């Protein structure tokens, strides 16, 4: 089936070519980073994780979001989603691959990465994160591929694959929960040390992931013969709306606890993010941009007329994406390090090589996604042509 990824029109090849160029630039930057050390990034003694881990965290959410299509289809027998489950699962594959790449480029000693397997340490959440992420990658490739094979042969989804599909549901929740635990279990980082972290992660994931899926469906409708269907897009937009409301609600809960309790440690990061602390205001414009997009997306998603128009929905989805990306990437990861444990403030700005590497990883993800979507859509077209 994979050969279908190598058959495509001019546009397809131009798109893939562009991605390859970005991937190449990213790879060269990574070689530079590898030879010079992580000092070529904007990270520092105080902000020891930056854009890589931020993107990693965000993309784990995107990967987990496949479950928002799988649950209605397989558990609630919502037949309409049958058309798009494969898109969600393949999005999961691409997103997890990006996650793993972001971890690798963040390591000080990437060639020692296997030490995590050679010296398995179940007390470390990172160990479990590696287990669940790789497991999820395997599950999605395995399920997606087999379901697609069956579809191609015109036979129903084989029964033996069902247990794997059911397993993939809690597994998807687990990848984002475990990723939240990376942060929520650390003493002394007030902004992260919160029981609601996993819930916040899941809500923002279930907003941003399906929002991306809607965008892909709309793009595919314009650029290919594949139409995900109006009903499908409407249902997805409802999911995004609910998840986004929860996401904002959870954030406001954090604010209440921090400010009503009056405990300074709980407030510092939030104050730094939205107003600046001791004259340091590096992230303030970012956070207000994020807040602005949150509000815009909420309005557009809640009002039925706007949600039902494809064009406006596209805008709303872009707003969800940007709002969540900044909040979770920039705000949550970088913000958590400010102020530092000694209550000094160091700020963070990503460098050019760092950004190129980040873009390179995204391009790799899109490359994989495009190839997989190409396969899936070709199969669907062939099946429909035969019918």
């Amino acid at each position, binding site marked *: 089936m994979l050969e279908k990824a190598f058959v495509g029109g001019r546009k397809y090849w131009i798109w893939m070519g562009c991605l390859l160029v970005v991937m190449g630039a990213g790879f060269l930057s990574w070689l530079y980073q590898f030879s*010079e*050390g*992580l*000092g070529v990034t904007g*990270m*520092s*003694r*105080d902000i*020891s*994780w930056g854009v890589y881990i931020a993107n990693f965290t965000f993309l784990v959410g995107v990967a987990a979001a496949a479950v928002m299509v799988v649950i209605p289809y397989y558990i609630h027998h919502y037949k309409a989603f049958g058309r798009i489950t494969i898109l969600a699962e393949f999005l999961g594959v691409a997103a997890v691959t990006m996650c793993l790449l972001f*971890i690798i480029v*963040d*390591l*000080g*000693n*990437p060639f*020692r*990465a296997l*030490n*995590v397997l*050679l*010296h398995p*340490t179940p*007390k*470390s*959440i*990172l*160990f479990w994160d*590696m287990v669940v992420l790789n497991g999820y990658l395997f599950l999605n490739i395995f399920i997606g591929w087999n379901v697609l094979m069956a579809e191609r042969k015109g036979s129903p989804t084989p029964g033996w694959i069902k247990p794997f599909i059911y397993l993939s549901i809690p597994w998807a929740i687990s990848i984002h929960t475990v990723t939240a635990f*990376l*942060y929520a*279990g*650390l*003493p*002394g*980082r007030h902004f992260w040390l919160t029981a609601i972290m996993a819930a916040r992660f899941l809500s923002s994931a279930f907003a941003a992931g399906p929002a991306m899926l809607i965008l892909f469906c709309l793009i595919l409708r314009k650029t290919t013969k594949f139409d995900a269907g109006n009903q499908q897009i409407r249902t997805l937009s409802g999911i995004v709306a609910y998840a986004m409301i929860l996401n904002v609600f959870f954030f406001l809960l954090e604010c209440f606890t921090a400010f009503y309790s009056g405990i300074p*440690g709980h407030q510092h990061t939030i104050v730094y993010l939205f107003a600046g602390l001791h004259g340091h205001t590096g992230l303030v414009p970012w956070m207000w941009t994020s807040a602005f997009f949150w509000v815009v997306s909420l309005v557009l998603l809640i009002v039925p007329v706007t949600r039902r128009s494809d064009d406006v929905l596209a805008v709303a989805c872009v707003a969800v994406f940007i709002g969540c990306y900044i909040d979770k990437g920039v705000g949550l990861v970088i913000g*958590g*390090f400010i102020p*530092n*444990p*000694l*209550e*000094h403030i*160091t700020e963070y700005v990503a460098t050019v090589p760092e950004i190129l590497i980040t873009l390179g990883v995204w391009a790799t993800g899109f490359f994989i996604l495009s190839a997989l979507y190409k396969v899936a859509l070709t199969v669907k077209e062939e099946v429909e042509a035969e019918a």
Partner: protein
Amino acid sequence: MGVNRRKFLKIAGISTLGAAAVPAADALAMNPIEWLDKQLGGFTPSEILLHMGHKPTGLKPREALTAKRWAMVVNVRQLDEEIAEACRETCHKIHNVPDIKNPKHEIKWIWAEHYEHALPGQHHEHIDDVLKEAPFLVMCNHCYDPACVRVCPTKATFKREHDGIVLMDMHRCIGCRFCMAACPFGARNFNWKDPRLFLKEEDQNPEFPTRMKGVVEKCNFCAERLAKGQIPACVEVAQELCKKKGREPALVFGDLEDPDSEVRQVLRRHHSLRRKPELGTNPNVYYIV
């Protein structure tokens, strides 16, 4: 642990060579057990064989200083800029800590902070002026329940069970920096650049390994000195200077589980604080203010 292992292998190597070279007379003059002991740097032959190429955890030459739980007391009122700086300089010199000026990439094992940064939350504006300016020496607390050890996915950072020192295996660290996010005291450093570029050849201590880029490092409570029967370098320097200045020792080091140890005596005499005790890491460094 890289440090111990290297030193250990060196000792093992030298002794094999040495065994052949030592004149017979010398050997005869000594009790054979003593002679062998000397040759093997305090390790027994079976220990050497058993641990060849492995991490010699729990293995120590017999002349080493030992304890069940090492701890340090910093008596802040006895410190001054000069002593604090001498501690920092000595520690960094003997441990080949590179002198990187850029604060973003800086490596520090021990350094001075003001009260409000060393003990945030325990500071208020009406404290004694002397304390406001006093150098609070901070370093790794060698926590009894270290968060850094809990999170490390490779056991590259580990607590030595027999004496509680929290150590690093630089050969195993993958540089994920999870431990840096976990340590609530900012005690850990990452080698953002090749540290050897910031170390002058002639200033290097050949007896202590230099590090490569991409690994994490921090204070090791002078484990390599304890193994040779010496107290940590910062404590030694501080005590010398305090003696010269006619003060009580600013730094005291000893076994927390020995009721007669110097640390226990000082802790009985003075009220002391620890950094962020509410986080449950159980620091083994105490502050007397």
